[in-house]
Structure formats: structure tokens, C-alpha cells
């Protein structure tokens, strides 16, 4: 309903649900506020926004006052101005006014409003109240005496982040904000409180007293740390990034960030950055040199080996952290210049496991829906994924859904940050996720909860029914460590919800037999008809920043750009035509196969761009041996990693903050990221290095002026990117598929591209069930009876963030998480050392008891040097290498 009201003599029609503050701002009338924030619940505490309303005796707070038809409001009377002045005077009597040393100075609401509405002198005499303060965290600085008690930090922590790490204690003028019992802060370090604080009471210690806010310039970019693709703002001066700030209302994250996005920027200007190319000299020492000589060295050797031993003897692995432009040129270089289809990325294994199933079952190759849908989901099933870690901002959207009453069920080998909030959190042993999903299918079939349209199309579900017949719900419940009731309720909620989706992740899929879980999950979606509409769909979630882009760009041994099969003559021809060059015919090797070939002496040259296999690839010592055996190893990196130390040539690349380009996030959103500072030293953007190298090899087709030109070529080669260019991506990017014809269409609510795949449902040839006959993906080996989940911590991203001093303050060492029950059974104490042994290798690590991991399961973060997971992970061809789950034996060290 629209209502008409008058503010300061001007009339306006507004929606009846808005408050006077919003209505005024529509008229361009600015009412000063402290405690109000649109994204938070109303509080009405600071009393700064008082206005006069005809017929109401007392002044009213505009932020809490709903508009009414015929309401007459004044914001400009002497009474209002006096009240504002009084509120400021009240706030200032006890305020330290140390703007000279305060990090908020320059962007402090109190400072600004005092300047605008306050008085230059104070009438307060005597001593100010001084509250005792102490350091509550290494990264978040609290200053109680600057606090104006607006509770924005408390509310954002509870209402947006769902953590409730902050609260108010004591009362009156002694009120203090802080963690429980004023101990140290134990939280997700999402930085929302820093963002929300209107003054300098909660600030980042990482930039404390380093720089003044007004000295920095700001530049928006995409966060480098996960596949959410959040928009952030780099703040820099003199080519140094001093901090990241939240880009209010911008991006799919609307400004929100996680700990990595907010604190992880210190990697950029890290003193250990490589700033010049290095070539190993005759004495075997890496020496700094010029770009020209380094590139000549690479060109000469790569070309020579390719010529002498064939394209199959060279290979390249690039990080999925690189931009689309980087990745596209990387595979073009490898294929066209070095005649090799041996190109891969660390996330290739995921893509090769997941995409064929998605393609076969649904005809899609990525998440079907938008992340935004998660905000409004009525029921959500999360299988084998800690969404709050893999994609923290997608996790926030799930938390919003929960606040709205959405029913979320997690199926994970332990608890996550969502568990406390979600409807239920089922701790299902690894290997039994399949049984759980089949249990849901069983309930839905038995209770007739399936979608009637699906039934209409399929006639009957006999195959599916048969596949779930041989176990009772009781048996399923016993095997999955759940109760019959939990399974039944989950199934009913999911089937009964209007908007229901499924998220699945690495833990479920990157285990032996994991694709069966995916098959069952798709059966469940199809059976309940939760496909092809807003709020209904499937989200395969991997955290790798640009894993989707790497796949789209053809960084794959058997897919060309645009997911075209290398084996297809026509597709190859099409690409060759666009490149005016040759693409080898035979499919290439995966990363694992390249390492195998290297060990066997068949692969002689390897080009690594942004990857550090020694930290993250399976194989341990075998891997190291294979790398050392390379005739020629190129490492393009930001840091002299363990792998780089083995290289013949090291090429200095820039970070994402130092280059332009695009990234494709987990929901198919192609986004433009922009350069904030110039490349450090002589470092160059990866695409530029590939381009220069191509030219050094005499290939003019590799010559590009800028990354925008590269995107134009991508748009001409990848059909579903066909209308994309850097200009069109300026705001919020767009979701592929997108074609040139769509480019003419206007923005739809600020969105461009395809928000939901499968609007017509599944095509005829996809209308079948996998009806997975077995009940478990695999079973543990009796010699290695424990299931070890290798995963990420919220505070790190791969091995890259090892270089962030800030993030290392939050976590710098791996410990082996073990349920106390498991520990007792193994006679292993909390804090003691154990040897973790897999068929591949072993290392010693400290045990940490945690109730968050289910009994019988173990968890180990894969970021840190003290627990080199490479040693445990078992290398193997795609159908065997399952890098998220390793079976181990744990023995006292």
C-alpha cells in the first residue's frame, strides 16, 4: 500500500512499510543517525534521528517510525536541531575525542555529525568517565571509551553473521561492549563489527596507526580467496594496499566479507614477494635477470623439448586462482605454441568428477541457480560441504534463510558453524552420505511426497523404488548414525517446501565412489521436482576461486574453451580457426598423469603457474622426486615457494590486486576485477607473461594489448560468453550463458544473464533415474580404519594465505581434530603427538580433541607446513584419487 506524507513541506508517496527515515531520504532529506542500519533490526537507541511529527507531542525517532497516510513531519525545526545538538553533546561528554590518533578519523559518524550539528565548546566540567579496557583480539581492536553504545556491532554479529560473539555488559554509563565475560574474542573474524561501527570503537588492528583514512584511494575488485566472488575495496597509497574495506551495497555480497577477504590483503605487499625473473645459472643458483632473458630461456627450452620429444613431453598446470584471461592464454600457449593438451588445474579433478554427471543427468555443467536464491530458500539440504567455510558469503545467505524460517539440514561428518543455527545437523560418517540420501528418497516414495508432474512424466518410479527396497529405514538410520525421525522429517520438509535446493561439496564427492552421492542427490531433486525455478536447484560448491572459469576457459586435458571436447574434430577445427593455429588431436594428461609421466621420464618440461604442488598435490616424496627429475621446470609465482625453489626459471606474477581481468564464480557469474596498484617490482600479470612468452616464441597470435582484448577473443571462442566484454561487466557482472543477442536486453533488477538454468525442466533424454543400487560409496580398509577429512579452515585459502601474517594470527598450525570418544578409544590424549599413516606416507601431528568432528572421523586442515597433507594423499587416476578423504591409521608418536 502506498501512503502520502509531507516532510518539511514537501509531499511524497512511499510504500507503507518504510520508515520516516527512508521516506525522507527519498526526498533527499538527510536525517542524521548513529544506531540505525538498514540491514539490522530496529533499535531506536541513539536518539539522533529525532523529528517532529504533527499531532505527536514528543519528538519521534525517524528510524523506527512507520510512515502513515497524511503524516506531517518536520526535520528542520529549532526543536529538532536543539535535540540533535543535545544528543551530540551527551555523546561527547564522555568521549575521548582523540581524533588525532584514531583510525576512524575521517570516516567517523560522530566526528562528521559533531562537525555538522554540534557546538564547538562543551559545557561539561570535570572528569570524563574512563572505562577500563584491554586487548580482546590480535586483529580486532576495541576501544571502550570511543564506543557510543549503538549496538550495531552486536546486532550485525548476531543477525548477519549468526555468531553472537559480542554483547553488552553492565548498564548505564558503565555499559561496555565485548565478548562473553569480556574474555578474548573467539569468533569468525568476519569483520562485520568493524564495518558496522560508526566510530572508532571497533577497528582493525592490522592497520592500526599505519595510515590515515583520507590519504588512501579506493578501488573495487573481486576477492581472490574463494569462489563466492565477493566485491571488496582495496585502499592503497604509494602502491601499498593498507587495508580492505567493505564495498557497501555492492556485489553479490552487498559489501559483506569474510576473514580472508578482509584481513588477507597483507599477502599483496608482503616483503617476500618475488619482484624480478630468476634463472638458474650454471652453478645451479637462481639469479635475478631481465624479463627478456628469462622469457628467452623459457621459450628456447619449452620449444626445444616440444620439438625434440613431442608436445606430449611438455605440460602445464595453472592455478584456479588466476583470471579467465590468464587461464585462457595459458591453455592457448600450451596447446598452440607448445603443441600440448597437457593442461590442467588443481580443481580439474572436481570438474572431471562432477561435470560429466551433471551433463549426463541434467545437461548442465555448473550450479543451476543463483546464490541469491539461497536467501529465500524454504528447505535446503547440504551434503558434504561446510558452506560457511567453502563459501562464507553463500553461508551468510543460508544464515539469512534460517532467520527467515528456512529449514536447513546439514549432512556432514561433523559440526559446522551452521549447526547451531540450522534445523538439524546430521553427523553422517563419510561413505554413508549415499545411504542418507537414499533414505530420503525412500521416505518420499513411501509417503507419496514426490512431485506429481514428475510422476506424470515417468508413469512410475519402479526402478528407484527397487533401489531403496533392500534396507529398512531403521537400518538406514543405524548405518548413518541418525534417527528414523530425523530422516523422515528431513524428507518431508524437503519435499513439502516450495523452494528447496541442494548444496553438495568436496567431502561428499571427492571420496572414492563419490559420484554416486551426486547421482542420488540428482534423483532426489528430480523426484521432488525441485528444479528449473527460482529457489529450486543444485549447487556444486568447490571453494577454488575461479574453478568454474578454469573449466570454461578449457584449462583441461580433454576440454577446450567452452567445454568443447578435444576429441571432437569439429570443435577442434572451430578453435583452430579462431586461433589461426594448431590444436593437438589427442587428449592430454591430467595433473596426476603429468606427474606420473614426469616420474617415468616421459614428461620433460613442466610449466606451473600459481600452483605449489608440494603443498597441495598428493604424493609427498614421490612427487618431489618427480619434480626434481624434470628437465625443465618453470614456476610463475608471487613467492619463492618450495616448488619454485626447484625451478629452472621463476617468473614473478602479480596478485589479483595488481591486474585487470575477469573471474567466474560458483554461480556462473562472470565478474570484472580491477587493478588497484601497479605490479610490485618487475612482476607482471599472468596473462601478460603468457602473451609475452608466446611472442618470444615467435607466435604473433599471442600478442595482446590488454586483458580486455583477451576477453574479446574469449567471447568469440566460448559460445556462452559470446556477448561478454569488460565494459558490460562493469556492474555486478553477469551469469552465463549469455550471448551477444542478450547484450541488448536491459538489466533485470540489476542482473544480467541467466539466473536459473533448466527453465523448461529436463529434456526428454535426461528423464531417468540413476537408482543407485549400492548403499555406500566405499568402505574403509581394515589396515587404515580411520577416515580423515582433509579440508579448509575459515581463515585460510589453500597454501597461498600462509603468507598472510594477519590470517596466521588466527591459525598458523594444523592440529588433527579428533572426537574425545575416538581419542579415548585410541588411548590418545588431547594435545599429544600422533603419527598419521596412509598407504602413501605419514607424518607426525598434534591431536586436538573436538566435539565438532563425529566419532570415528578425523579432520586435518590442508593449509600448513607442519602437516604436509601431500604425504598422506593418495595419487591416482581420476576415479581413484579422492583428495578430500584419506583412510589412515593413527598411532602414538
Amino acid at each position: 500500500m502506498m501512503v502520502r506524507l509531507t516532510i518539511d513541506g514537501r509531499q511524497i508517496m512511499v510504500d507503507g512499510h518504510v520508515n520516516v527515515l527512508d521516506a525522507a531520504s527519498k526526498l533527499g532529506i538527510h536525517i542524521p543517525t548513529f544506531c540505525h542500519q538498514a540491514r539490522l533490526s530496529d533499535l531506536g537507541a541513539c536518539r539522533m534521528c529525532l523529528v517532529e511529527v504533527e499531532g505527536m507531542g514528543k519528538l519521534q525517532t525517524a528510524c523506527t517510525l512507520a510512515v502513515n497516510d497524511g503524516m506531517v513531519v518536520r526535520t528542520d525545526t529549532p526543536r529538532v536541531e536543539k535535540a540533535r545538538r543535545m544528543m551530540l553533546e551527551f555523546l561527547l561528554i564522555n568521549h575521548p575525542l582523540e581524533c588525532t590518533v584514531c583510525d576512524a578519523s575521517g570516516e567517523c559518524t560522530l566526528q562528521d555529525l559533531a562537525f555538522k550539528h554540534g557546538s564547538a565548546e562543551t559545557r561539561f566540567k570535570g572528569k570524563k568517565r574512563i572505562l577500563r579496557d584491554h586487548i580482546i583480539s590480535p586483529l580486532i581492536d576495541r576501544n571502550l571509551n570511543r564506543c557510543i553504545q549503538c549496538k550495531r556491532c552486536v546486532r550485525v554479529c548476531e543477525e548477519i553473521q549468526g555468531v553472537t560473539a559480542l554483547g553488552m555488559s553492565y548498564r548505564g554509563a558503565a555499559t561496555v561492549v565485548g565478548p562473553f565475560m569480556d574474555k578474548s574474542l573467539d569468533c569468525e573474524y568476519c569483520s562485520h563489527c568493524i564495518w558496522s561501527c560508526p566510530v572508532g570503537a571497533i577497528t582493525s588492528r592490522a592497520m592500526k596507526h599505519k595510515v590515515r583514512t583520507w590519504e588512501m584511494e579506493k578501488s573495487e575488485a573481486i576477492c581472490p580467496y574463494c569462489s563466492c566472488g565477493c566485491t571488496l575495496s582495496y585502499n592503497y597509497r604509494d602502491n601499498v594496499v593498507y587495508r580492505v574495506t567493505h564495498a557497501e551495497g555492492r556485489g553479490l555480497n552487498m559489501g559483506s566479507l569474510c576473514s580472508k577477504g578482509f584481513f588477507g590483503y597483507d599477502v599483496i605487499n608482503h616483503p617476500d614477494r618475488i619482484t624480478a625473473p630468476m634463472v638458474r645459472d650454471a652453478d645451479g643458483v637462481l639469479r635475478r635477470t631481465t624479463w627478456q632473458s628469462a622469457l628467452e630461456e623459457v621459450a628456447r627450452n619449452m620449444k626445444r623439448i616440444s620439438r625434440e620429444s613431442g608436445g606430449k613431453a611438455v605440460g602445464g598446470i595453472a592455478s584456479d586462482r588466476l583470471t579467465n584471461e590468464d587461464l585462457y592464454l595459458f591453455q592457448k600457449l600450451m596447446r598452440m605454441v607448445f603443441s600440448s593438451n597437457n593442461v590442467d588445474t588443481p580443481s580439474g579433478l572436481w570438474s572431471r568428477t562432477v561435470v560429466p554427471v551433471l551433463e549426463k543427468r541434467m545437461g548442465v555443467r555448473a550450479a543451476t541457480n543463483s546464490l541469491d536464491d539461497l536467501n529465500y530458500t524454504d528447505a535446503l539440504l547440504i551434503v558434504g560441504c561446510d558452506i560457511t567455510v567453502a563459501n562464507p558469503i553463500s553461508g551468510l545467505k543460508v544464515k539469512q534463510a534460517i532467520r527467515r524460517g528456512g529449514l536447513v539440514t546439514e549432512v556432514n561428518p561433523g559440526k559446522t558453524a551452521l549447526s547451531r543455527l540450522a534445523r538439524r545437523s546430521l553427523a553422517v560418517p563419510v561413505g554413508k552420505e549415499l545411504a542418507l540420501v537414499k533414505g530420503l528418497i525412500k521416505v518420499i516414495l513411501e509417503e507419496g511426497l514426490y512431485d506429481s508432474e514428475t510422476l506424470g512424466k515417468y508413469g512410475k518410479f519402479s526402478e528407484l523404488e527397487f533401489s531403496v527396497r533392500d534396507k529398512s529405514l531403521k537400518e538406514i538410520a543405524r548405518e548413518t548414525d541418525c534417527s528414523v525421525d530425523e530422516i523422515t522429517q528431513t524428507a518431508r520438509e524437503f519435499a513439502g517446501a516450495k523452494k528447496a535446493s541442494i548444496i553438495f561439496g568436496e567431502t561428499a564427492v571427492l571420496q572414492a565412489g563419490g559420484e554416486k552421492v551426486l547421482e542420488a542427490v540428482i534423483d532426489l531433486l528430480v523426484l521432488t521436482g525441485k528444479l528449473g525455478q527460482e529457489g529450486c536447484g543444485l549447487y556444486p560448491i568447490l571453494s577454488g576461486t575461479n574453478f568454474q572459469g578454469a573449466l570454461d576457459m578449457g584449462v583441461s586435458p580433454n576440454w577446450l574453451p567452452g567445454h568443447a571436447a578435444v576429441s571432437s574434430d569439429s570443435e577442434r577445427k572451430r578453435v583452430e580457426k579462431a586461433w589461426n593455429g594448431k590444436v593437438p588431436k589427442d587428449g592430454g594428461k591430467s595433473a596426476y598423469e603429468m606427474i606420473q609421466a614426469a616420474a617415468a621420464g616421459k614428461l620433460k618440461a613442466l610449466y606451473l603457474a600459481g600452483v605449489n604442488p608440494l603443498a597441495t598435490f598428493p604424493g609427498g616424496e614421490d612427487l618431489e622426486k618427480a619434480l626434481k627429475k624434470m628437465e625443465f621446470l618453470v614456476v610463475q609465482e608471487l613467492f619463492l615457494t618450495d616448488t619454485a625453489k626447484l625451478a629452472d626459471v621463476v617468473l614473478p606474477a602479480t596478485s589479483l590486486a595488481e591486474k585487470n581481468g575477469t573471474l567466474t564464480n560458483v554461480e556462473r557469474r562472470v565478474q570484472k576485477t580491477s587493478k588497484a596498484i601497479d605490479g610490485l617490482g618487475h612482476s607482471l600479470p599472468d596473462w601478460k607473461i603468457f602473451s609475452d612468452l608466446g611472442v618470444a616464441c615467435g607466435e604473433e597470435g599471442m600478442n595482446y594489448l590488454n586483458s580486455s582484448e583477451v576477453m574479446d577473443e574469449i567471447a568469440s571462442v566460448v559460445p556462452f560468453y559470446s556477448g561478454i566484454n569488460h565494459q558490460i561487466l562493469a556492474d555486478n557482472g553477469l551469469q552465463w550463458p549469455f550471448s551477444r543477442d542478450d547484450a541488448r536486453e536491459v538489466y533485470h533488477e540489476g542482473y544480467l544473464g541467466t539466473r536459473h538454468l533448466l527453465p523448461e525442466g529436463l529434456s526428454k533424454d535426461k528423464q531417468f533415474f540413476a537408482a543407485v543400487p549400492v548403499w555406500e560409496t566405499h568402505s574403509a580398509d581394515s589396515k587404515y580404519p580411520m577416515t580423515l577429512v582433509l579440508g579448509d579452515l575459515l581463515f585460510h585459502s589453500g597454501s597461498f594465505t600462509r603468507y598472510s601474517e594477519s590470517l596466521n594470527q588466527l591459525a598458523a598450525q594444523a592440529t588433527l581434530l579428533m572426537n574425545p570418544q575416538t581419542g579415548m578409544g585410541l588411548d590418545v590424549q588431547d594435545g599429544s603427538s600422533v603419527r598419521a599413516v596412509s598407504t602413501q606416507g605419514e607424518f607426525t601431528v598434534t591431536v586436538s580433541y573436538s566435539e565438532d568432528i563425529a566419532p570415528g572421523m578425523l579432520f586435518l586442515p590442508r593449509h600448513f607446513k607442519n602437516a604436509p597433507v601431500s604425504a598422506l594423499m593418495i595419487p591416482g587416476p581420476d576415479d581413484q584419487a579422492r583428495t578430500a578423504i584419506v583412510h589412515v591409521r593413527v598411532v602414538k608418536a
Partner: protein
Amino acid sequence: MSELKILTRNVSRPNPAHIDSYLVNEGYVALPRALNEMTPEEVIDEVKIARLRGRGGAGFPAGMKWDFASRDRRKPKYIICNADEGEPGTFKDRVLIENDPHAILEGMALAGYAAGAEKGFIYIRGEYPQGARILERAIAEATSRSFLGDNILNSGFNFSVTVHRGAGAYVCGEETALIESLEGKRGQSRIRPPFPVNVGYSNLPTVVNNVETLASVPPIILRGGAWYASIGTPECPGTKLYSVSGHVARPGVYELPMGVTLRELIFDNAGGMREGRTFKAAFPGGASSACLDESQLDVKLDFNSLAVAGSMLGSGAVIVLDDTADMVKATHVLIKFFEHESCGKCTPCREGLFWVRRILDQILEGSASEQDLDLLLEICEGIRSTSFCGLGEASVSCVESTIKKFRGEYLAYLRNSGSGEAETEAAS
């Protein structure tokens, strides 16, 4: 005017809190009558006819409150008995809690029946452990005799009561802060509207009534609203429990028809002033009310008359001061209370009261000037007109009224600035 014992009818009986004592004097007669012979609407109507006004301070018509809650379709609904009794000078609810708990329970059950609630809470201040025990025992007694619990007296009506003890914050007497506290949260007032009758405990319809309000209900149902309305004044019918404290000969709780004058209360009932002393001032509605001086002794102690006189009835806590009282010091004591009890949520109350107390400190120390008096009034006006809840709004009445009526005493301190304390006599 002499005492009229309706609420305190059972107080002087032996073992008054026991259910049998209650039963012999028409206890639990109103409840079965309502359940058997009246519809919920009729119960509400009777309370409306009685024109019963809330005794917690605001004087809101109880019948209307119940009506609002009964009209809200959402369920479950709740009845909360506000037994926080935190207003300095108030101790009348305690008399009922300790001596006639069943009257409160019966009143709650009737409210529940009328509003459509099946659950009641008694939020009792933490400083009343004895009262909490008595209430709990009374609940057990009433439940065992089917005056509470499921299917009360076979009527099909369910109503149970839980006692919740507060943790010692004055603001938790304010109904929305009380609800927050009851929900386990920090005791701070909520934004109103929406009001508790629609969005209360667990965001569901909730009636919050004072102990005395609820205890007044059984007699109303028993004898009829018209009977009740004939007592007291037309706008404020019924009797009122006045807590009289301070410099009177016989402090205590007196039940008198509404509209008794201050003079009658003090001199006819509370034994007059202490031996050899004369009346100087009274705060008729507790620490939150503006004081009355000698010229106002004939003001009637009811909601409307006191409002006209520039003060308020509040909880009916009459704090009387005689000629020995130092009004500046008295005000200082009251402000210290409010400063201590400010919940800290809103700027004016949190910071303003700190400032007001500081200035009063300075006045007493002799380091203030006359300008500070104007500043003080300006700050008070700021606090009163912009605070979030009733605590802040009413907290400065004592300062404003004493400056207005006893400015001389303040000036005496200011004149003697720098030379230590002023003599009270010099002021009067």
C-alpha cells in the same frame, strides 16, 4: 477518609497466604463463576464497567488491554504479572504477594480466561525471595485443588503459572524490558508500538498487569463492575494501596479509595509527621514523580488529579519529607538511583543522567555556579523529552520539581560555593 479493605481483606488473618484462609473469605468463587457463567467477553466487559486502571504506574484501563489481547488471533497468549516492584518507595505489591498470593493467582486465571491465554508468568523482583517462595507454594496449592492447571474445575480451561525471579534491574519493571528479561535477554525496553498485547513474550500476544491490578479482579467479578466503579473517583474508581514512607509517624501500606488527599493520607492514616516536625514535601508516585509542596497537601491522590498538579500517581508510593530534609541531597540520592539503573540503551538517559549527577555532585561540593542550574534544567528537559523509555523520561522529575519548588536550597549551595556545605536552614 478511612481505610476500605478490599485488596487487603485477608491481610490480617492468621496464616493469610494459605489457600484455606483464602477460601474461607470467598476465595476462588469468582473464578468458577466466570468459567461457568460468563463468556470471556463478559469478563472483559465487567472489568471495563469497573473502569479498573492499571496500578503499575501508567493507569491504563485493564479491560481495554485484555480486549486488545483477546482480539489478536495468534496463539499461544500469555499473562504476565508484574511483581518487579522496583520503584523506590513502593512496597505495596509485597503485602499482597506475601499475604494474599491466591488473590493474585485468581486474578491471573481470570485474565487468562478473558484474554484467551493458558500460560502465566509472575516476574518477581530478585529481592523478594520470600515472596517467590510463597507464590510457588500458592501455585502448588491452587494446582492441587484444580484452580490452576489443566482443565480447571472441569471447565475445559487450562491455565498454569510459573514464577520467574528478576536479577535486580529497575528497568525490568518496564513491561517490555521485563519481557526481554523473561526471554533470557538483557533487560532493555523494546520499541513500542507494537505493544505487548500484540507482540509480547516470544513475540506473541501478552497481557502485562501489575500485582495490585490483578488482585483487584476477583472482587470485581464477585461483586460486579458497577459496585467497584462506585468506589473512589469517577475517572479512577476503586481502592488504591498507598505505600507511605519517609518522615511520617506510621509509615506503611494503606488501602484507601482513590482520590484521598495527601493531607488525609498523611494526617488521618499515617499518623501525621514525626513528633515536632512539619511537612515539607512529598513525592506522591515514588522516585519518578515530581514532588508536591505544602501548598499541594489537598491534592487528590489519583491519576488525573496528580497529573493536573504536575506530578503523577505512579505506583502510589508516597515519600514524605519533613523540614529536616535537604532537598538537594534528597534529589542527589534519587538521581544516583536513576543513574545506576539506567539500562544504558539510549543516549540521553545513559549520558545525560551521568552528567546530571555530576552537576549535582558539584553543587554539593560547592564547585558549581548559578549557570549550572539552568544547564541542569536544560539537560533534564533533554532527557525527559528524548529518552527511549519511561525510566529516562521520569528520572529527572525530581530535579526539575525540586529546582522549581525549592530553588532557594540550590541557590544556598551555590552561594556558598567554595566554602563547603550550605546550611539547610539558610534555604528555608
